[in-house]
């Protein structure tokens, strides 16, 4: 059900929420989305390590993946589960290794998807490299802010991916030979369905390999 006719009251509510909200800006957060204490990546001051682990898929993506996609993914496939400060995701490859899927966490503003997943994306793989970042700007966080998700292709030798946030850097570990699904609430342009991620890639001991901006647009 759409909400266009409720716009004025929704806008008023948003103002009230914004007025009562507070917090959220600057500084290193002490906890991840699931409440766990946030560890720091020693080589990068003021950083937060997003939780990342490799699990068996084992039906874990059933709540977000459509039936045709589920048929393309082996039930015993490895998936990477990530929980960060702004978002959470699952990443896994298709049975033949030609596609990569991600389940993106958050609130569906249209109210038609249920937590924890608000969207699923699929990207075409060229080896271990995804051809397009598969930007997703549909999801909202618990404070109803837009959350942008995108894939980052690790460069050779990269073990950690850093994404600049307001006042800290969120660090994602490269796992399972898959592109790394990162999330941010910063640099999102909903009017043009684009987002910019300031990304730094590090080797295993935290030496900076490359730094730049990932400009992503919703596509396909």
């Amino acid at each position, binding site marked *: *059900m*759409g*909400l*266009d006719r409720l*716009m004025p009251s929704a806008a008023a509510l948003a103002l009230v929420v914004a007025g009562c909200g507070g917090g959220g800006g600057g500084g290193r957060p002490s906890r991840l989305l699931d409440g766990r204490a946030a560890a720091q990546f020693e080589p990068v001051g003021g950083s937060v390590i997003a939780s990342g682990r490799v699990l068996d898929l084992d039906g874990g993506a059933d709540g977000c993946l*459509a039936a*045709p*996609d589920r*048929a393309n993914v082996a039930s015993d496939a490895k998936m990477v589960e990530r929980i960060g400060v702004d978002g959470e995701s699952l990443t896994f490859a298709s049975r033949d290794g030609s*596609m990569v899927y991600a389940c993106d966490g958050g609130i*569906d*503003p*249209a*109210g*038609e*998807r249920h937590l924890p997943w608000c*969207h*699923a*994306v*699929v990207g*075409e793989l060229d080896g271990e490299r*995804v*051809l*397009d*970042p*598969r930007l*997703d*700007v*549909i999801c909202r966080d618990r404070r109803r802010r837009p959350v942008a998700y995108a*894939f*980052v*292709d690790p*460069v050779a030798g990269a073990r950690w991916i850093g994404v600049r946030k307001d006042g800290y850097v969120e660090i994602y570990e490269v796992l399972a030979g898959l592109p790394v699904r990162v999330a941010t609430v910063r640099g999102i342009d*909903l*009017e*043009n*369905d684009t987002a910019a991620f300031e*990304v730094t*890639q590090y080797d295993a001991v935290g030496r900076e*390999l*490359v*730094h*730049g*901006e*990932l*400009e*992503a*647009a*919703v*596509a*396909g």
Partner: protein
Amino acid sequence: MRAFVAMLAAGFALSGVTGAQAYHRFWANCNTDPPTFMTTMTRDAAQDYANAARYEGYQWGGGCWNYDEVDSYPDDPPQQPGTHGEGGDCSGLTFKTWRESTDTWRDGRYYWRALRNVHGPYDAAAFRDGNGAPNHVVAKATAGVMDAFASGTHIGMVFMRSLYGGDQIVEAKCEACGTNIFYRTYRGDSAYGGVGRWGWTG
């Protein structure tokens, strides 16, 4: 110098969009005008809108074209929004044809002019799954004119039903094939689901 070149190459790799990021070609003609809020939206008007986009090309991540019947920048490298060529991609064409909002919770009707460069927040998989207030999943058997068939990677709208198993589909298919009407068998393809737009007024 070698270090500079290496870092430049690594930077492009990092961006995921390669050197084509620097292109500013057809999009220089495009605008950011707001859409016009409409109270009506008919299927035959949607047919006209999509039909007029034929021959105007295809651009990954794009949503801007004119009406000169020519793709101004054909054969760009695939899957690179940074090439900034003419045309929509599959989901961008559907978004504009279906008069949708960039806010997924709005189900009103928003008319976007051809040269308004907008793609919308939905990729093909989001349409297939019925994401967003204006969209919903429909049974493929009953999908009619200007409903659509979507997979995880592509969406095309039914321009006309066929008696022979397939449909005439209007779609932005690829750089090489552009935007056009093609005979397709998405209706019988298990990778595709049916999807529709709420709110047709005729």
